[in-house]
C-alpha cells in the first residue's frame, strides 16, 4: 500500500510528566515496531502531533536522537490540539508525522564551546540538542546552559536541571524573573539577557544557541554581539505557524524561506536576510 505524506504514525503515550503548570512531556512509542525501526531523526527537527478528531499541532522532538526506542515532546496547553493532548492519558494512541525540518549542525560544532540560552517553555527544542551534545560529550569543549523562566514554578525539566547541575562537565545557570523567586531559590534572579551579560561567556571558538520568547531573543542578540559573537555562530529556531511541515501548505513561508523546510534552525546571519515576518 502506498501511504500519503499526510499519514501519521500511530504512537502510544508511554509516560506523561507534568513539567510546570500547563506544560506536559509525553514519552511516545511507535505502536508498530517496524515504524520504530525505520525511524531516524536529528537534533532540531520537529513533527506534527495529532489527536484524532481535534487536529495536528507542531512541536519539536524534545528527546535526543541518541536515546533510541522512543521520542518525547513537551508542549504548553494553549489551543485546540494542545488542550486535547493535555486530556490524553497514558496508554492512549495519538498520531505523529515527521521528522521534518533542518537540524542543529552538531557535526560542525565539533571542538567548540557551546552556549545554550533558553527561556520559558523554549527549553524543549534545546533539550534535544543539549542531550545530544552531552551524550557525545567528547566532541565539544565547554558547555554552558543559561535557562530562565518567569518563576520557579515555570521552570521545566526540573529533574534534568538537577542532573545537569551536579554534572561537572556542564555549567548550568538558572534564573527566574524578578519576583518569581521562592525563599529557597539558589539560582540567579533577573532576565535572561542580563544574566548572559553578567556571566559573560567568551565568544572565542563558541557557538550560541538561543531559544525563547521573541522578547527574550530580541534582547539577547545584542548582548551576544557585544560579547563578540558573530552572527554566523548564533543559532535560534523560528516558530511560524505550520500546517503541513514539508513546504506545501504555504503557512510558514517567509520571504524565500519555508520555515518548515529551511528551518526551524537559523543562524542570526540568516535571519538578517529574511523579512521581519516571524
Amino acid at each position, binding site marked *: 500500500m502506498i501511504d*500519503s505524506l499526510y499519514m501519521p504514525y500511530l504512537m502510544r503515550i508511554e509516560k506523561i510528566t507534568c513539567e510546570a503548570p500547563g506544560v506536559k512531556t509525553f514519552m511516545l512509542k511507535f505502536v508498530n515496531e517496524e515504524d520504530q525501526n525505520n525511524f531516524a531523526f536529528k537534533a532540531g527537527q520537529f513533527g506534527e502531533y495529532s489527536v484524532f*478528531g481535534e487536529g495536528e499541532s507542531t512541536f519539536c522532538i524534545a528527546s535526543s536522537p541518541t536515546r533510541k526506542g522512543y521520542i518525547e515532546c513537551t508542549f504548553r496547553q494553549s489551543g485546540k490540539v494542545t488542550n486535547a493532548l493535555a486530556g490524553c492519558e497514558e496508554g492512549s494512541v495519538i498520531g505523529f508525522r515527521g521528522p521534518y525540518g533542518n537540524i542543529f549542525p552538531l557535526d560542525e560544532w565539533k571542538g567548540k564551546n557551546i552556549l545554550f540560552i533558553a527561556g520559558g517553555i523554549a527549553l524543549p527544542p534545546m533539550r534535544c540538542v543539549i542531550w545530544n551534545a552531552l551524550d557525545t560529550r567528547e566532541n565539544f569543549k565547554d558547555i554552558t546552559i543559561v535557562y530562565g523562566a518567569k518563576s520557579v514554578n515555570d521552570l521545566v525539566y526540573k529533574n534534568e536541571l538537577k542532573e545537569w547541575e551536579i554534572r561537572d562537565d556542564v555549567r548550568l545557570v538558572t534564573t527566574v524573573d524578578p519576583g518569581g523567586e521562592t525563599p529557597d531559590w539558589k539560582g540567579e534572579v533577573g532576565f535572561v539577557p542580563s544574566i548572559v551579560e553578567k556571566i559573560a561567556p567568551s565568544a572565542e571558538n563558541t557557538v550560541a544557541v538561543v531559544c525563547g520568547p521573541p522578547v527574550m531573543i530580541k534582547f539577547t542578540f545584542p548582548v551576544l554581539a557585544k560579547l563578540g559573537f558573530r552572527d554566523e555562530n548564533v543559532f535560534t529556531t523560528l516558530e511560524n505557524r505550520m500546517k503541513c511541515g514539508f*513546504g506545501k501548505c*504555504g503557512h510558514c513561508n517567509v520571504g524565500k524561506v519555508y520555515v518548515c523546510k529551511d528551518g526551524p534552525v537559523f543562524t542570526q546571519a540568516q535571519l538578517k536576510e529574511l523579512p521581519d*515576518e*516571524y
Partner: protein
Amino acid sequence: MNIERRLVRKDSLEKLFDILRQNKKTVFAPVMKNGKASFKPVGSFSSIAEDYIQTTQSSKEVIFPRVEKFLDYEKNGKEVSIKGFDYQSVTETVLWGVRPCDTIGFGTLNSIFNWDFKDEIFNARLSKTIILSFSCNKSDDYCFCTSVGGNPGSTAGSDILFTKLGADGDYLAEVVTEKGQAIVALASELFEKTESVEKEKFLANVPVKFNQEEIRKKLEKFFKSSQWVEQSLKCLGCGACAFVCPTCACFDIQDDAHGKIGSRMRCWDSCGYSQFTVHTSGHNPRSVQSQRWRQRIMHKFSYMPERLSVYGCTGCGRCSRACPADMNILEHLISIQEVKI
C-alpha cells in the same frame, strides 16, 4: 514527443464527447449557473457552456479539490485505527474545455506539490486526468497570459489542444502527449489528417503589458515600499482571489469528528486571510492587510520563481474579475514595473 496535428470537424466534437462518456470517463466541463461558468461533471454535450471568456473558478479543483480527505480514523477506548487515502477512488477524468492559462497552471501546481517531498495524492489525481483544452479566440482586459510566458494558443500542459478555426469553423487538434494519443485512438475516425494550418490568426490578441523578469528583479528591493499600503487599502482580505486562482495551492489541515469516527483532510486556505499566520499566542507576523497583499505578489513573482523556478501566475485574470473590491493584479503589476527605485 512531437506534437501531432489533426483536424476535427465541428460536428465531431459531440461525437468525441459521447465516445468519452461511453468509455466510462468522468468528464468535467464548464457549465453556466447564475451567470457564471464553472467546471462540473457533465453528462450531455449540450450542457457545456460556450459563451464565456473564462470560468469564474479555475479547473484546479479537479486535481486539487477544495477538500481532500487523507485518512479515516476510528477510536476505540485508548486505541485508534486509521485508514489512508483511497487511491482506488481516483478514477480517470477528462477535463474538457480548459484554457491554456489553466493547463499551464497544472505545471505550477505540480512544482509546488513535488518540489521536495512528493505529494502522491496530488500526483495520483494529475496522472489520472486527461486535459483537453481549447485555445482562446476571445479575451478581455483582465487577461494577460502573454506577459507571464503564456499565450492564447499555448499547448503547455495540455494533452490535446483544440483551436477553433474561425467563427463557424472546424477544429485543429494538437495532440501533445501520450494521454492525448490514447484519446485519439478511442475515436481515430474523428481525428483527420491535415495539412499544416495557421492557427495564430484565429487566436485572441492579448498584448504584452509587463516583463515578469523585470518585476521579479524589482521585487527583490521592493519589500519595504509604501506601494503595498497604497495598493491594498481597498483589499478586503477575503479568499476570493486565491480560491479562483489556478496556481494558489495554500491549504489548511483539519479534522472532522463524528463521535468515535472521523477523518482528516486538507482544505483551501489563503495568505490573504488575517488568520493565516496567527499564532496561538495571538502574535501575528503579518498583522495588517498590506503585508498579506505583499505576500500574494511576492510569493507569485519573487519567492516562487526563486524557490521553484516557476512564476505563480498564468495571467488568467480570474482574481481581478472575482475581487469584490476591484483589486486588479495586472494594474498593480504594471504600477510596480513603472516605479523607479
